[in-house]
């Protein structure tokens, strides 16, 4: 069985092993024992609430309870950009219009901004290739939304997720070649590596400060603005199902989209419900929406020992008949409250 749970200090070695299996492109999970140790320590302090909310970094691991092996990892950063500036390009519109000439030109523009400063960030998602089947990816990615729905007071209003931008098969980033290279005069991978290790002051020093008209860029650079890397497309779809949208912010190097949501508008906040573990009555079941065998995310309600599984049980009018084995995975007992959310969004009945 797979359980997604708050990381613990003892997970460090297993995490390191997994990080060695992450390819390039994920910049936040480098197999560096020192960096990783620091990060796990912060995560443990975050769940223990011994550091302030904006410094927290909630890391979750997916554990295969049959083998004790780690199958994946993901995280929620309390707030970005409060110690190092967090840069994005924001896509805006400028209209150039002359009544005299009857010219009306609508131009896209890129503004270098720190607008997302202070947002909560979903990041560091990695699922081991051995586990890339069935609903595992969804379970891992969406676990974070259920966590936020259970503890919304820990988060700022704005939630973001940076998506890896489009690259050609050769690894060439058309956006970087069309824009960044002229100012940084180095290879994309090098820039990427510098930002990964936190060396970001060069951005302020070298990046053009003035708004840019997109029309100045080469066509291939224009076309990939807001487009994700082909391997990131499924992750993007999962987040969009949960109510996250591309609102016009992109990465300054590869123009990958930033997905955003108001925490209060997330599907998890609108549709997740609390239920007590216990039997459901016939009467309740009769009025319940038809069961379609739709799996449900179920979590306990404990911050320090947050755990979540995927279940076939259906919550009905505030009760859920959770099998004993699943209760154990959640460290719960009959009568405890759990939070539930259907794995997939329901279609609008409009």
């Amino acid at each position, binding site marked *: 069985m797979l359980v997604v749970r708050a990381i613990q200090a003892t997970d460090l070695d297993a995490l390191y092993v997994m990080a060695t299996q992450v390819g390039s492109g994920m910049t936040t999970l480098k197999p560096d024992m020192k960096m990783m140790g620091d990060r796990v320590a912060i995560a443990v302090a975050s769940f223990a609430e011994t550091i302030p909310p904006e410094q927290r970094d909630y890391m979750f691991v997916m554990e295969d309870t049959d083998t004790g092996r780690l199958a994946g990892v993901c995280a929620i950063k309390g707030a970005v950009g409060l110690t190092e500036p967090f840069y994005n390009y924001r896509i805006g519109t400028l209209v*150039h219009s002359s009544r005299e000439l009857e*010219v009306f*030109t609508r131009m896209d*523009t890129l503004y270098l901004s720190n607008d997302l400063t202070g947002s909560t960030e979903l990041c560091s998602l990695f699922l081991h290739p051995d586990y890339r089947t069935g609903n595992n990816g969804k379970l891992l990615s969406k676990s974070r939304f259920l966590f936020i729905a259970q503890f919304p007071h820990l988060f700022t209003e704005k939630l973001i997720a940076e998506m890896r931008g489009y690259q050609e098969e050769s690894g060439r980033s058309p956006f970087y070649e069309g824009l960044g290279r002229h100012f940084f005069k180095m290879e994309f991978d090098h820039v990427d590596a510098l930002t990964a290790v936190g*060396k970001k002051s*060069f951005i302020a020093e070298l990046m*053009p400060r*003035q708004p*840019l008209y997109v029309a100045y860029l080469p066509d291939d650079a224009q076309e990939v603005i807001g487009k994700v890397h082909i391997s990131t497309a499924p992750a993007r779809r999962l987040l969009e199902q949960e109510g996250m949208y591309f609102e016009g912010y992109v990465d300054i190097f590869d123009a990958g989209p930033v997905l955003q949501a108001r925490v209060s508008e997330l599907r998890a906040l609108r549709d997740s419900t609390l239920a007590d573990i216990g039997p459901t009555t016939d009467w309740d079941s009769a009025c319940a929406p038809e069961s379609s065998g739709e799996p449900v995310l179920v979590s306990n309600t404990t911050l320090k020992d947050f755990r979540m599984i995927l279940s076939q049980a259906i919550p009905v009018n505030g009760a859920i008949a959770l099998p004993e084995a699943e209760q154990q995975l959640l460290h719960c007992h009959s009568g405890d409250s759990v939070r539930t959310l259907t794995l997939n969004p329901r279609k609008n009945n409009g």
Partner: protein
Amino acid sequence: MYVVRPVELADIAALEALAAVPMPGVHTLPKTREKIRAMVELSIASFGAHVDIPSEEGYLLVLESQDRHIVGTAAMFAAAGSNGTYFSFRNDVIQQVSRDLNISHSVHALTLCSELTGYSQLSSFYVGEREHGTPEAALLSRARLMFAVLAPHRFSDRFFVPLAGVTDSEGGSPFWDALGRKFFKMDFLDAERTIGGARNRTLIVELMPHYPVYVPLLPGDAQAAMGQIHPSGELAFNLLTAEGFEADDYIDIFDGGPILQAHKNSLRTYTGALQRRVATSVDTPDRGREPQLRYAVSSGSEHDFRAVITHCPALDSQLSVALSVEVQEALHVAEGDTVICVRI
């Protein structure tokens, strides 16, 4: 002897003939009889006007050959954009330094600006094929500044001269294609026709980019065209840079052609102009005893301005200049009058 003098109504037909010569760019003579007449009338009114502060005056000088043909034109406008603003791109160089990365380089950017508004503008410089490269061509170009030395209240302390940029064989402009076209949505020639060559129109601020254009983002041919002159402008360019004009600060917003500019104190005509009294030279056989230098000489009257070339010994330590009777007649001056002399 060639004479530079203000244009007269009688010159209109001759100017029309000159205007029929194909010339690129928008900084040349007007093309239609109507517009030529307007320019001539403006010039006559301007020379005749009493001016306190430079404003909408425009002055047109012509170069008249020995046989009384008009073989060149050169104009001055007292204050560019005086009925609006004069827009240009300023060449900005942004220094970029990252100590962390040990990187240091500069980025070239173009910023739409109106700094040249109120400068005096020189334009419409043209000389015929035969006069190309002659001292008379230099006289024509420089006579404008000699008039400004004579009547400083009619001009700004700063001058600029836009020169036509490069165009391809179809009249297209690679600079325009990379920039203006994206905002105007029309061809270069259409755009120039539409705005009548003006650089002071509201629609420029409505349509042109509000933010600096980073040059490295422009296509190679557009970058190459920046600050490049059309071959027809080389003579003017050479004369003006020799005069002290500098070409690096501004370019034209449409075709990227260079805009030369200078503070008057940097111009050779200003620093080298000598006021001297007219004496009559005697044509003696030992004229060669002192080395003869070439001077541009202009009459000292705002309202009857004329300029010619003459040769005489160095004037630096003289109080007067010896001019032949012929030259005096050409300048409309007599012994005892003051003239302005500049080495040329």
